[in-house]
């Protein structure tokens, strides 16, 4: 009994010690020493000059990243910022300046908030209804800016802007047949303009005082479609554009009872006016407000540890990884990103690092041409950003697959290979065909079709008539009626695994299943009872062997995956218990290793033992990655970007599927932490302390020159760059290392040894004379 409590205490101590060990908390003077961050706002959608009495130096903006912010009009600095939900609920539909406040309309037209424009403090919030959100709700300020009227797909309501109280709510008349998209007002009434496709336009008159429908009139319009674009001018005139016959129809409600058609060729000038309407709504003088750069950024770090960021929409940025300063930026004309599993990607390749002087480093970005869809390759020097070729390389085929060879050519360039739609293989640089020729025999390609769910493996071959081609050699079918492939995650190519196995408590070794060709696929779908599920497959992409697969019933994505060494960690949403969970898989060959020299997928070891365990996450994970170091000796940590703005640095040991429920002496010998179902987020493990970063798309990690250190770059709306030491700084001298003392001691030692040597020699001489 006493012994068991003693063990329990010991275990508690162990856990506490463990956390103390990994604590990465900083001293106050270390803030910003190892890291930098940038708070951004995204692409500006609405902007207005602050008309409040305190100051007129502010510009208030709402952006496509669901952010509202106040900016200093002289410096562009962000004075305050609020980040709304990333989903449709957070979309800002309108932005108004009312007295000293700024009013926003979000939540599909259902949530109205008023913010103090000087401080950004929420003044009041008003939720109109919990009804379905509308894509494009309309709103108008009325009665000397004292009331806001909002039109959603099924209701129209008025909000008093002093307190946020909802004055009245009314259902739109005939909401099942009529689609209301526009409205306008005069002093007493509100006029809703709705369309019935192919039939007529309805104008409903609603009392501004009570919200009662007074009158409904119909104007015949057989040409009108749901997709017809109409615009309400400030004068109260409705103008619609009918694209088939190229006619403009205009109506002056409520008195007008007929649309006046105008052939488009007559009114080019007027059309411009319509286009300008959106600008006049924003105040014509705010057009130039484009403050912060857009956010899509990809980073790579080359061997010298210098970070280069590449932005995936037309622009490419080079950012200093010490300060976050933009060194260069460039536009690649006509480039658009590829669509891959529902995400936009612009693959970036490190062709040559900085390690091959006098050859300059070489990076390449692949995209497709906006008009033709053919491949577009920009090869540039990451230090200067300058194009290394005469111009951007226009490939004369559509790229279906791209990958980089592990071998490099005589100029130390690692060639990139492209597979076109005819399964023909091309290589860049073109001179590297000899490298490709060597690679053909033992390089395989695979492709996953998200729509059909078929994963196909190809081998490369060289034929006399076609040149390099690829032909299918294996296929795996992950398709079901409602199932889609959502993730394909391979291991990092530059990853080193230091230890082949794991020493157990009884001094035997459990060998890791280290298959470099293993790729994680996840699918999400719905079963016969319309319950969602997530399935994870581990597939060897050389032979097409399904090594392991696991299915989570009543689970949903988005699934974040980390795949490294012999383990996979992934997060998902448990629908039944309404919580986020993280699962860890570890693959082992067993107590013996079948092939000790090299791994071959064509002569694979027996099916691995898959250890698995899951844990509860009391927070939302938006992105996940693992630390990576040069030699792989350092412990692994997992970095999780949380929805609340933190970046959590979690030791992999906490996500070890061998954590025992009831620890034995052997388990303790092995250093396993007893199982606890929940993985918390202690504040000292949040590496970005109070520098919260929001809407993170991904975290990139790269090995630094020092084995102990990993460079971390989180990007999304905000940017955050830091370094982490998963096993502490074992190869770096501490900050407070006493250089003076050690040099004084060393010098004294050397001096005294010289003097003593001389003295000893003299003494010996004297002794010899005696």
């Amino acid at each position, binding site marked *: *009994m*006493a012994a*068991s*409590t003693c063990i*329990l205490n010991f275990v508690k101590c162990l856990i506490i010690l463990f956390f103390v060990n990994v604590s990465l908390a900083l001293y106050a003077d270390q803030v910003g020493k190892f890291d930098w961050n940038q708070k951004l706002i995204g692409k500006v959608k609405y902007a207005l000059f602050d008309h409040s009495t305190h100051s007129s130096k502010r510009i208030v903006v709402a952006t496509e990243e669901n952010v509202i912010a106040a900016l200093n009009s002289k410096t562009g600095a962000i004075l305050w910022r609020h980040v709304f939900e990333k989903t449709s609920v957070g979309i800002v539909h309108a932005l108004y300046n009312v007295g000293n406040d700024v009013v926003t309309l979000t939540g599909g037209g259902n949530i109205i908030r008023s913010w103090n424009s000087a401080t950004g403090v929420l003044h009041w919030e008003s939720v109109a209804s919990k009804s379905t959100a509308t894509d494009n709700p309309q709103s108008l300020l009325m009665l000397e800016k004292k009331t806001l009227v909002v039109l959603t797909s099924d209701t129209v309501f008025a909000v008093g802007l002093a307190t946020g109280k909802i004055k009245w709510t009314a259902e739109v008349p005939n909401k099942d047949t009529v689609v209301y998209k526009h409205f306008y007002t005069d002093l007493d009434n509100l006029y809703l303009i709705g369309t019935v496709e192919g039939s007529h336009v309805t104008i409903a008159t609603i009392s501004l005082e009570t919200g009662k429908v007074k009158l409904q009139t119909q104007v015949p319009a057989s040409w009108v479609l749901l997709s017809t674009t109409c615009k309400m001018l400030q004068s109260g005139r409705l103008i619609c554009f009918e694209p088939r016959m190229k006619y403009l129809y205009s109506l002056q409600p409520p008195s007008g009872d007929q649309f006046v058609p105008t052939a488009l060729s007559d009114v080019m000038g007027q059309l411009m006016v319509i286009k300008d309407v959106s600008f006049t709504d924003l105040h014509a003088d705010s057009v130039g407000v484009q403050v912060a750069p857009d956010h899509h950024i990809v980073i790579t770090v080359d061997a010298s540890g210098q970070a280069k960021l590449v932005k995936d929409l037309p622009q490419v940025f080079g950012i200093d990884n010490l300060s976050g300063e933009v060194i260069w930026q460039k536009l690649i004309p006509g480039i658009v990103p590829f669509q891959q599993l529902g995400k936009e990607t612009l693959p970036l390749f490190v062709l040559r690092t900085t390690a091959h002087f006098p050859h300059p480093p070489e990076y390449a970005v692949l995209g497709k041409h906006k008009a033709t869809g053919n491949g577009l390759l920009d090869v540039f020097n990451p230090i200067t950003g300058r194009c290394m070729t005469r111009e951007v390389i226009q490939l004369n085929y559509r790229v279906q697959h791209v990958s980089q060879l592990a071998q490099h050519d005589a100029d130390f360039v690692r060639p990139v290979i492209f597979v076109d739609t005819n399964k023909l293989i091309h290589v860049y640089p073109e001179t590297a065909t000899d490298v490709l020729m060597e690679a053909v025999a033992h390089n395989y390609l695979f492709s996953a079709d998200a729509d059909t769910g*078929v994963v196909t493996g190809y*081998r490369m*071959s060289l034929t006399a008539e076609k040149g390099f081609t690829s*032909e*299918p*050699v*294996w*296929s*795996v*079918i*992950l398709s*079901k009626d409602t199932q889609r492939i959502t993730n394909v995650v391979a291991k990092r190519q530059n990853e080193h695994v230091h230890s082949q196995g794991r020493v157990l408590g009884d001094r035997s070794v459990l060998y890791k299943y280290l298959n470099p060709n293993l790729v994680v696929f996840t699918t999400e779908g719905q*079963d016969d009872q319309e319950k969602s*599920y*997530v*399935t*994870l*497959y581990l*597939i*060897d992409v050389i*032979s*097409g*062997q*399904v090594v*392991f*697969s*696991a*299915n*989570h*019933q009543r*689970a949903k994505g988005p699934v974040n995956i980390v795949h490294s060494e012999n383990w996979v960690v992934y997060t998902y949403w*448990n629908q039944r218990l309404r919580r986020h*969970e993280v*699962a*860890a898989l570890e693959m082992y060959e067993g107590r013996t290793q079948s092939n000790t020299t090299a791994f*071959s997928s*064509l*002569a*694979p070891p027996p*099916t691995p033992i898959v250890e*698995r*365990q*899951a*844990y*509860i996450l009391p927070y939302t994970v938006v992105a996940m990655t693992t630390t990576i170091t040069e030699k792989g000796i350092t412990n692994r940590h997992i970095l999780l970007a949380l929805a609340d703005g933190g970046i959590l640095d979690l030791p992999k040991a906490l996500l070890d*599927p061998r954590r025992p*429920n*009831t620890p034995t002496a052997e388990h303790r010998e092995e250093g396993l932490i007893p*199982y*606890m*179902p*929940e993985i918390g987020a202690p504040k000292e493990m949040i590496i970005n302390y109070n520098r919260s970063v929001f809407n993170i798309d991904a975290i990139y990690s790269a090995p630094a020159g020092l084995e102990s250190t990993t460079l971390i770059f989180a990007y999304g709306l905000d940017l955050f760059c830091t370094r982490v030491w998963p096993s502490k700084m074992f190869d770096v001298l501490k900050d407070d290392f006493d250089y003076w003392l050690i040099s004084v001691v060393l010098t004294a030692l050397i001096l005294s040894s010289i003097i003593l040597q001389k003295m000893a020699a003299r003494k010996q001489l004297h002794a010899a004379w005696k």
Partner: protein
Amino acid sequence: MLIQTNVLRRFFIEMKFAVCLHFLLFVAAKAGDFDSDFDGGYTLSVEHAFGAGGEFSSRGTVTVKSVKSGFAVFTQDRPLNHEEIEKLRHAAESDGFYMIRIPTKPELYVSTFIKACSLYESELSDVIRIHLDQTGDVIGVSLTTVPALCQGLEPPDSNLTNFNTSVEVAQTVTGPTPDTSTYLQKMAKDKEQKVAGEQDNRSFFAKYWMYIVPVVVFMLITSASDQGSGGGGGAR
């Protein structure tokens, strides 16, 4: 023997039910004298080709007797003829591939390959591993030979007619879930132990001997030295 596509389609629709019903029926057949012809297993046809780009021909059928226990057998249609052996030898000598595929849906196959030489040198002894998803649909197949490596052996033709194949069936497993119940039980047990530890009904001495013994020892020593000093005083 190639199964016609439409037959195949029907077969696969039936297959799902067959997998679900298999265990029930199997138990029923054991309990009462059920017609043992219908054992709930299903068959998959296996096709093979020598050399990449070669024509696929039928190799045999895999009969999955039980999905849960992964019990399945391979039946060869007919022994390999001379022409096929020659193709295999040619593929092995030219470092070519040997490919197999299993039709799942109409016009859809799961397939895999190995080096032809490893099949050739292993004298047609191989392991087919079929991977099923959670509902029992075939998602993938893989092939290994015993031994798997090529050493340049040249087996005689007589050993290259009949496949010595074993079949493994693997199914998608249920993913791990957080084990809260065991943990809560452990917590409850620890708490119980703690409570039991507080209600200590050992004797007073058993509980506090570690405090009593030093006090006693101390007292003994001091009294002994008192006596010693007292004795000394008496002598003076």
